[in-house]
């Protein structure tokens, strides 16, 4: 008896140890895989930064230079002194500050409508909504430009931001709908029994559970607006209203065969533009891992 009692824990321990050892191996493999892949994927950032510190000659050489012979910090100075790049970045921030709340509020409302209510014509609206993604923008561009021109909205940010306050576009709505549909309906029903209004259910029950999704939407909206080129290019004429993505082309606008390239400035401007995005991503990503979103729920 005593022997058995003695042995049981020991087998248990050895089992644990075995399991722990196997976990270590698994973890090790995961890290190795990740590190190898990360090196490959981190290279572009390194490449962007490195080339932003090179001279145009180094950049234009046939075999890319991994590192600049002498780091050209002056490239960064030129980016801000040659053009009002700081102002343009400020404008880009302003646009995202308008659009992100818009897409979160109206996108959630629309997604809520599609995910939780059964009403006449919903299917048709849903397909039409997806359809808006499928008409190539090239053919609606000119009519839209003329429309906004007649509304006297050229050289304002309205054409660039109004969509985010009107649902935020099919991609975001569809994404949010998928998330709402993954949340058990029992929760809505329970709140409904307690007499909560639909808007109360969205606000009090669903939105708190959608933090990862809303963070995703915010990041994607930021990225989209931050890099959006064609809209600001078409709708803005005044230099002081330009966005960073449009201003970037100032360094690209010289005929290639015919003059000293300014690729190094382009790369420096691009590097400056990616810094806020990296900061935002690093800050926001805890919402991806933190999310013990539904774990407390009973099935």
């Amino acid at each position, binding site marked *: 008896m005593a022997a058995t009692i003695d042995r049981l824990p020991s087998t248990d321990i050895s089992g644990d140890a075995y399991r722990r050892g196997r976990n270590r191996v698994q973890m090790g493999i995961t890290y190795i895989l990740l590190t190898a892949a990360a090196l490959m994927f981190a290279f572009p950032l390194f490449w962007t930064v490195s080339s932003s510190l090179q001279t145009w000659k180094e950049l234009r050489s046939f075999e890319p230079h991994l590192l600049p012979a002498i780091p050209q910090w002056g490239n960064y100075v030129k980016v801000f002194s040659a053009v009002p790049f700081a102002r343009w970045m400020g404008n880009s921030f302003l646009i995202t500050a308008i659009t992100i709340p818009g897409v979160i509020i109206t996108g959630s409302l629309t997604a809520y409508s599609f995910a939780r209510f059964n009403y006449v014509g919903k299917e048709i609206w849903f397909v039409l909504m997806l359809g808006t993604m499928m008409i190539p923008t090239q053919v609606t561009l000119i009519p839209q430009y003329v429309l906004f021109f007649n509304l006297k909205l050229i050289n304002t940010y309205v054409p660039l931001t109004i969509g985010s306050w009107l649902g935020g576009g099919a991609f975001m709505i569809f994404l949010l709908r998928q998330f709402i549909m993954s949340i058990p309906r029992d929760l809505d029903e329970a709140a409904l029994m307690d007499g909560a209004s639909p808007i109360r259910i969205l606000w009090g029950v669903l939105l708190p559970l959608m933090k990862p999704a809303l963070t995703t939407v915010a990041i994607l909206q930021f990225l989209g607006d931050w890099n959006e080129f064609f809209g600001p290019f078409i709708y803005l004429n005044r230099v002081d209203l330009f966005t960073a993505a449009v201003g970037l082309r100032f360094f690209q606008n010289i005929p290639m065969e015919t003059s000293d390239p300014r690729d190094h400035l*382009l790369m420096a401007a691009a590097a400056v533009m990616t810094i806020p995005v990296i900061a935002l991503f690093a800050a926001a990503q805890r919402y991806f891992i933190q999310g013990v979103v539904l774990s407390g729920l009973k099935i």
Partner: protein
Amino acid sequence: MATLANRLRLSSFSEMLNTSRQRRENFYGYLFLLPWLLGFLGLFLGPGLFSLYLSFTKYDVLSPPTWIGLDNYTKMFFDDPLFYTSLGRTFYYAGVGVPLGVIGSMFLAILLNAKLRGLAAYRTLFFMPSLVPIVASVVLWKWLLHADFGIINQWLVDLGWSDPPGWFGDRRWAIPSLIVMGLWQGLGGTRMIIFLAGLQGIPESLYEAASIDGATALHKLRHVTLPLLTPTIFFNMVLGVIGGLQVFTAAFVATEGGPGFATTFYSLHLYRHAFDYWNMGYAATLAWLFAFVIVSLTIWQLRLSRRWVFYYGS
């Protein structure tokens, strides 16, 4: 929760209208749909219908459109060889690139979702390529994949491939080159973020329950993670197909549709007619045919989704 395919059956209309619960559903459904509906009707429908009208006209933007009936459509089907080749090449690109991209992003997200120390840094790193300006990554890849002097072909020759691909300069390899570049740029981007967010929606309790039953990591992956991730996979597939079929920038910047039309994808063909040749009417025709193709594909995917997409708690 019924799938869309179910909901597409409109037979129960009258039944739906009658009950008071249904009236409530209608009211709140439309109330919350309102912002989008306004945008759709005000900003999209007008220009959209205008472009549909244009598809029956000859229109160069500067003179008024002139009605030419179905001429653009007959030209497209019978008199524009590039219509078929560009469509075929687009399907090739999307057919290979999208599944690879979605599966790759998913496994990357699963790896990065592990509760390991230091993963925050990794997540940020994987996200990087999607932030690098396309001009910069084109320079990089054009050098890496250079047929004669590129490092990759040097490796391939060392490995014993005596006649390695010509990559961007070879009509057979130009699309694979773009796919490789796109994967590298896209695996850790938007799709991965969406997968990460999707993984957060999977209840911890399910994994705990599986652990108690002695499930291995592989089991958990197959029986918990993957089924519960299907809404996200579905989303990324649908959007991936839509995006993949509209592939434009990479080919526009890296290959300009060449060599010898090899990467003249449908969107590039359309763009040329719209903004290079100023055949806006014909471009509208190409656009609407394309929209029809993508909508059909998407509806097909939505129907199919009933069989494999699993909404937890429905």
